[in-house]
């Protein structure tokens, strides 16, 4: 049993931490601290070239994490994001490939391929959404299964072969930081407005906080859930556009190892794994933190295994913090 002074201190600290914890911007402060702590040891961290690297690494991760944010707010989960990236990558590349592409040589090849990728992402999200919302299947099982299905489909369609010779106009989407940042800003801005200023955004939060109450209140829960997964699929496809353009190749294994980064960045930002809470700006902060951490640890010359352990530890801490915040806000 502690003294009254200690108890008071504990309560004040708890209240302050709770206030800070409710804001995903806490992580922005941690990012700045991380940068300031490491910059003296790694001069390259603050260089212009590294800033461009950081932006290049951050942008596609932010796009796919924003899609996941929408699903998490609705109380769902989407593990199939990485496979949607792979599937849309190979299909898009096969549409516009300069040798054997269905639109090889056509000036419409790149825009058509992008449209096909986005539509395919939406279709994949629709499958997930229908299974979760109408068939009442657990999101974890549905998206784990579709992750395997979409990944297998991508490998089967491409016969495991990467597809290159993509049009220059398409490659520019990933290789020019300004264009990639513009795409991410438009998508992120749209998602932010949708979540904070629209009726659909309020429905999403309501469904994530308590679907039964939301249904009683007249929210079309099934429709909202399906739409959330469609948004997630489209954002994964948009990230696939950026990854495919950046690597100048469509590949059935693009994004294969990305899930922990996407989920980790979203949760670190403050979006709740338990639904009902999250913001695009928080996700941006989470992505910034994880990308900066990865980049800085790389620049420090730490081994791959050390980096994995540090990142895993940070994500675990974020998940613990999320559980703690949920208990503080909603009780046990």
């Amino acid at each position, binding site marked *: 049993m502690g003294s009254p002074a200690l108890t008071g201190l504990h309560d004040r600290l708890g209240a302050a931490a709770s206030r800070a914890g409710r804001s995903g911007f806490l992580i922005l402060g941690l990012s700045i601290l991380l940068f300031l702590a490491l910059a003296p040891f790694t001069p390259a961290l603050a260089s212009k070239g*590294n800033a461009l690297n950081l932006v290049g690494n951050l942008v596609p991760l932010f796009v796919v994490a924003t899609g996941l944010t929408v699903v998490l707010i609705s109380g769902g989960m989407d593990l199939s994001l990485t496979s949607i990236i792979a599937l849309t990558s190979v299909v898009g590349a096969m549409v516009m490939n300069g040798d054997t592409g269905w639109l090889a040589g056509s000036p419409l090849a790149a825009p058509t391929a992008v449209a096909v990728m986005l539509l395919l992402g939406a279709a994949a999200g629709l499958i997930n959404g229908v299974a979760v919302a109408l068939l009442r299947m657990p999101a974890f099982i549905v998206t784990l299964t579709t992750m395997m299905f979409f990944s297998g489909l991508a490998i089967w369609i491409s016969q495991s072969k990467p597809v290159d010779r993509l049009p220059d106009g398409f490659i520019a989407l990933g290789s020019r930081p300004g264009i990639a940042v513009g795409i991410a800003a438009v998508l992120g801005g749209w998602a932010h407005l949708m979540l904070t200023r629209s009726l659909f955004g309020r429905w999403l939060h309501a469904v994530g906080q308590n679907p039964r109450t939301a249904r009683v209140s007249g929210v079309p829960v099934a429709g909202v859930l399906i739409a959330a997964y469609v948004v997630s699929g489209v954002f994964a496809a948009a990230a696939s556009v950026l990854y495919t353009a950046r690597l100048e190749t469509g*590949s059935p294994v693009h994004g294969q190892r990305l899930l922990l980064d996407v989920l980790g960045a979203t949760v670190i930002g403050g979006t709740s794994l338990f639904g009902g809470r999250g913001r695009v700006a928080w996700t941006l902060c989470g992505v910034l933190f994880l990308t900066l951490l990865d980049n800085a640890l790389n620049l420090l010359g730490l081994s791959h295994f050390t980096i994995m352990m540090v990142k895993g530890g940070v994500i675990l801490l974020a998940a613990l913090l999320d559980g703690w915040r949920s208990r503080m806000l909603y009780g046990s």
Partner: protein
Amino acid sequence: MKSSSHPALLARRRFLPAVLGLWMAVLSTGCGRDEPSEGATATGTAERLTVGIAFETLQTEYWVAGYEALKSECARRGFKVLEAVADGDANRQLEQVKNFITRRVDGIILVPKDAKTCLPAIRAANAAGIPIVLFNRPAAQSDATSVAVVADNPGLARATVDYMIGEARKTGRKHQAMILMGDLGDINAIGRRDGFDAAVAAAPDVIEVVSRIPTEWNQEKAQAGVVNGLQANPGIRFIFSSSDFLFPSIVSALKAAGKYHRIGDPGHVILGGIDGDATAWQMLQDGYLDATGVQDVYFEAAQSVEALVALREGRDVASVILDPGFVIHQGNFREMAEKTWGANVGK
């Protein structure tokens, strides 16, 4: 009890210095990676280069052996080494190469994820004027400039399978054969398959290929494929694996079918592979494996580092440097132990 001596506060006072100490230790460990290992002696060049080594994965013994061989070669020359492993992610590999460029390394040695997704990384190194050498996997044809040090996969596979066919011929009967193929997006896997095909095409009187197992370099798929292949064709007496790391899967399937016997036993299935890893080495010693084609990791590592030095000095370097490798079998494996990396794993 005074609050200043409360255990929680004492623990907090100790906690902060401990965290700071740990932080400094991590930083010093990380920064220490930039320094060459003690006792490294500069040979071959007076320049003390910093080399970035980026591997796609360290999931198999072969890649670990290659990684260690490269670091040893750099240490022998007194070079600093920066390390990165992409864990199979082409995008992460591109980020890591860009990090090397940011740190102004003098040269990059890269094991690419595949022949095509590595091209932006090579272009980035080209644009920065940093020489780049691809270890064991070449890049696709493009405007990007690099040197590749690769095993002669078709030649090595052909020589290995030729030896196996010779063993089959000694029995005086025709053999049904199985091949385990790798990821056909990997040019090494294609080369090994082509070497196998060329060898068996020249021996139709001895070999009939009845089963082709696509493994995508996955042990579970290999195991399931061999089980199915042996059920469909119980007469298979000749198995070639495109990589030695698939042997545990093959052995498991053969044991389940009651067909895992030593050389000389009437039920022996002729076995051969490529790589020369520790498992293959043990199987050779135990008398179960007929032959394996060994990639000369030490030769490839030495050639890779030498190519970087030559490129920096402006000397001409062939765009592809071939490692001819060598075949080890029951007749010669003991005398080849020193050159066989699999025999030296864990020493």
